[in-house]
């Protein structure tokens, strides 16, 4: 077992005219809960996109579980056990909530196309596991009531919760959450926090982007702060709270 689960080295990403990330290093250790914060447009989502393979990295490297995933396809990275949520909800809008959840897990369950087409007993077993997990996460997010509705007909917050639920469906080694608490009601945030903490205690690793400081401070063991694509601070919540640079760039008070 390597001592870092995810290792981002000197990651740089430009968009036409904009430097979204510049030489950023991030280490995520197994079993920790690390938060990534920073002002709007500081490059957090871009970082997620680069790690999960959705964006081509300009320079730098990403290693996950010891393997170089810099040039891997997003689906390969996902199947390696890295899952992420999207900040701007993009569930499959014409699929039911249930199908969204089943979809989230099925690629993780190893099998082949032929097995898939012909519903071998193993597939049936997988399917049973999937339904069971779906039931659990639906209950957690209070979406059971709407499980047969198409995702496009959910309220914004519900879709955000569905996004969260989808990330939990498979049993990934590393979960990247992008702004999970935004638009979510206080009750649900409390639950969400408790659940994340519980999973974390069971050994799951999280990398969380979040603008709700109460959530960040309550949950994180460590925080990294980005500004204008660069890392400006890194440390425990207490250290970050009192960091002058962070105060100026982010909290504003």
């Amino acid at each position, binding site marked *: 077992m390597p001592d870092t689960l995810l290792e981002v080295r000197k990651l740089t990403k430009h968009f036409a005219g904009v430097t979204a990330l510049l030489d950023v290093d991030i280490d995520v250790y197994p079993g920790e809960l690390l938060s990534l914060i920073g002002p709007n447009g500081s490059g957090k989502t871009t970082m997620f996109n680069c790690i999960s393979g959705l964006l081509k990295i300009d320079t730098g490297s990403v290693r996950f579980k010891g393997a170089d995933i810099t040039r891997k*396809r997003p689906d390969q990275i996902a199947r390696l056990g890295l899952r992420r949520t999207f900040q701007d909800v993009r569930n*499959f809008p*014409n699929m*039911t909530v249930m*199908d969204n959840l089943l979809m989230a897990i099925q690629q993780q369950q190893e099998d082949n196309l032929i097995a898939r087409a012909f519903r071998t007993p193993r597939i*049936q077993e997988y399917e049973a596991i999937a339904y069971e997990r779906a039931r659990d996460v639906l209950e957690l997010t209070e979406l059971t009531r709407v499980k047969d509705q198409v995702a496009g007909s959910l309220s914004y917050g519900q879709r955000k919760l569905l996004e969260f639920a*989808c990330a939990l469906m498979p049993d990934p080694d590393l979960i990247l959450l992008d702004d999970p608490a935004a638009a979510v009601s206080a009750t649900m945030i409390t639950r969400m926090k408790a659940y994340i903490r519980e999973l974390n205690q069971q050994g799951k690793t999280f990398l969380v982007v979040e603008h709700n400081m109460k959530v960040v401070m309550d949950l994180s063991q460590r925080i990294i702060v980005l500004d204008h694509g660069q890392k400006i601070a890194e440390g425990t919540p207490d250290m970050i709270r009192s960091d002058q640079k962070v105060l100026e760039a982010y909290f504003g008070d």
Partner: protein
Amino acid sequence: MNNAHIDVRTVLFWGISAVILLILPQLFPLGYLVNAMITTVVWIIFALAFDLSAGHVGAVSLGHAVFFGVGAYVAAIAAPQLGLGYFGSMGLSAVTMGILALIAGIAFFRIAEVSFAIGTLGALIIAQQIANNAYDLTNGPMCIQSVPNPTIHLPGNAISVTQPVEYYYALLPLLLLTLIVYRLLTTQRIGRAFASVREDEVRASAMGVHPLRYKLLAFSVGGALIGALGSFQAQYITVVCPSELAIDYTLTMLIIVFVGGAGRMRGVVIGAILFNTLPRILENIGGGTIPPAYQQVIYGLILLGVVLYMPDGIDGLITRLTGGRKSKRQVVTDA
């Protein structure tokens, strides 16, 4: 949800459909009618195969007639030289068109949506021009003539297929295969993966789906089925012309699938039946006294009527009439 449970109504439906399919040409043995039945089955197969990519992974290609036409040319040019029989010829066309679709897919899936549709339409025009102008190979507009009537080699004896009724029964295995393949690919796990690719490729890939792989699966299986169909067509009509690559074919498929109900087997099949029978009905009403141009106008108006008054397609209408679940294209879990 419980899949072990077999729905009596489903069994009944398929049973009755199968019986009807089998006895239909015995009830109406007139060549004209059997020919119409054959064309209908051809269109059903074509439309289902087209729907695999258009309705399920959301890649609407307007170039599908390429697989049909080139499949027919392969059957007319190569199959006789290799001495292949009926099914051999179909297999050859299916394999070659499956591979062609695979290669074309890798190239064309770089583009999406309308660009993909128009781009593949461009490919169809290219193919048709080549068929029209590569005189030495295809005879151009003079067509490849007298494709031999096929023989079906069965253990023990060989049957020569010449009559429409024989062609009809010879085509049914392909229909059965298409229905099975369609069902296997569009329900449950693969169907869900297809749907995820259709809805949002980026998100699908973040969930471990390789979008290109699934699109290629739908595209090349569809291409192979249509290729086999092209082979049938060549052996049935016995003439292969550049008109087999006509844009009209794909436009008709577009009409059938999106008016019938994209992504739904029932809708697609009904669409294919309707839009094949409609012209036959029009050419015979009033004792066949309506001039063809007027028939076309009526056909166009009926098409518009369906588009305007059945916003969810024919399938949506049926769902509404039978009090089924309100549509919004709902997919897969227990399709």
